[in-house]
């Protein structure tokens, strides 16, 4: 058993990336994810890796594109406004079927917003964000340990499906310290026969590209990509359930909102309300199964988010609007308190007791 260490979530991401075999990091500083870049700047030169502070977020994501084309495990990280800048590159990565890990430690928006935690980039992360039809696999850690685990999982999934993976964290999970162990069995990167590694005059040229001027061809690439997405949906949805088996009121929350909600659910149970929590770990693919199952007995659902209500749409779709889905959230860097969530639970359960 590896030793337990105390680390900030951001640092755990960086260390886990190194363990996953990532030796190339490109980024541009922004609060509240700067610890990732700082950690990489310190470690990469010592282990033969590359840390490069690009001239902008746009440059960094295109460096990721180049490095991934060459077959390497590569990552970048930023926070909300910086992730917006990266969207063009992310669309190109998706259109070229390139694996990589992108970390978004979300902060309040829109615009330059603030630097306190937020989850208001849910739409951007799960529904596109850049142009064109595409998806990212989106992973939502709720603890420092999970930030490490999902970083490694993220690299593995990216390579498995040849697509970009986003780790959707937030300011709080990035800044907090918790014990973490790095006891991982990492799947090494698979062979990448498509990578542009030089032909050595022994094979045809590999071309990594997202430009198809013939609509027939471009349509085929889209259709094939969506077949791949179907496989991802079937196999990769992850979630955690807490006291949902007999729940009347089911709270849906991810990341830091799930931590707060869990406290509220425990308190609700103490007060005799059958509350439960479904915590999506993958936001795309969205875990519909537990919601469908819970809808068979639950009276109502509540989506708890650090946004004006974004995931709530996926919760509604998952239960096919068979049960009411309420919203509870704070924005701008504020975090709902367990008491606020508890009062939403009571309301959904049918008035104060």
């Amino acid at each position: 058993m590896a030793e337990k260490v105390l680390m900030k979530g951001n640092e755990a991401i960086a260390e886990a990336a190194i363990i996953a075999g990532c030796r190339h990091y490109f980024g541009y500083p922004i609060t509240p994810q700067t610890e990732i870049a700082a950690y990489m700047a310190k470690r990469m030169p010592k282990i033969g890796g590359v840390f490069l502070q690009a001239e902008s977020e746009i440059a960094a994501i295109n460096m990721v594109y180049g490095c991934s084309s060459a077959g390497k495990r590569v990552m970048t990280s930023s926070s909300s406004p910086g992730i917006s800048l990266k969207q063009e590159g992310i669309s190109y990565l998706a259109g070229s079927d390139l694996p990589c890990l992108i970390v978004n430690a979300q902060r309040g928006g829109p615009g330059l917003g603030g630097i306190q935690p937020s989850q208001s980039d849910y739409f951007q992360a799960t529904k596109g964000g850049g142009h064109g039809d595409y998806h990212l696999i989106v992973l939502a850690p709720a603890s420092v340990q999970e930030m490490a685990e999902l970083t490694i999982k993220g690299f593995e999934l990216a390579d498995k499906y040849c697509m970009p993976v986003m780790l959707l964290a937030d300011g709080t999970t990035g800044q907090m310290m918790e014990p973490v162990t790095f006891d991982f069995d990492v799947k090494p990167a698979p062979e990448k026969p498509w990578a542009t590694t030089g032909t050595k005059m022994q094979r045809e040229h590999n071309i990594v590209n997202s430009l198809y001027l013939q609509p027939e061809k471009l349509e085929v690439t889209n259709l094939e990509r969506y077949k791949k997405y179907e496989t991802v949906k079937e196999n990769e949805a992850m979630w955690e359930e807490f006291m949902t088996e007999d729940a009347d009121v089911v709270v849906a929350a991810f990341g830091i909102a799930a931590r707060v909600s869990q406290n509220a659910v425990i308190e609700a149970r103490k007060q005799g309300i059958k509350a439960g929590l479904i915590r999506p770990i993958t936001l795309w693919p969205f875990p519909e199964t537990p919601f469908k199952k819970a809808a068979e007995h639950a009276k109502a659902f509540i989506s708890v988010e650090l946004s004006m209500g974004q995931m709530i749409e996926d919760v509604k779709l998952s239960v096919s609007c068979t049960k009411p889905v309420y919203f509870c959230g704070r924005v701008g860097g504020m975090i709902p308190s367990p008491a606020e969530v508890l009062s939403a639970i009571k309301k959904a359960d049918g008035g104060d007791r």
Partner: protein
Amino acid sequence: MNTATILIAGFGGQGALFAGKFLAYSGLIEEKQLSWLPSYGPEMRGGTANCAVTLSDEPVGSPIVTEPNVLIAMNRPSFDKFEPAVVPDGYLFADSTLIDAESQRKDIKAFYVPATKMAADMGLTGLSNMILIGKMVKETGAVSLSDAEEAFKKFVPAKKAALIEKNIEALKAGFEY
């Protein structure tokens, strides 16, 4: 206590975050479940700085502490802001050198330690934070101080190891106050 939800608050530079780290590493050594959450951003530059530490025998839910059962107030604004939030039967530790007020609440256990003055008198300027931690540990038993040195060694960089001794001295002074 089964779960200590500790809020340490003061001006930036008073060592609130450092004191929280000491508690977190002590908890790690004692194999407790824990989280440490700092305030970050502009408030750290001379404004109010605070950190939340949760130490528990059970897995930690939310790392955010809005209603502490232990408050360490290092200046007046922190006292004014957080004293009403302490849960009934909770603890308050205040630096009485810098806080010219006392809690009117009857439902909390309040302790006043002239930590800044004590630190100055003992040649431990800047270590009022650890004096307050020492008093807090004595009254609450949130962690034991037996592994204090080991806890410091886990997060104080080697080049600053010389300062560990003074930190321990401050802890003891608070513990014995």
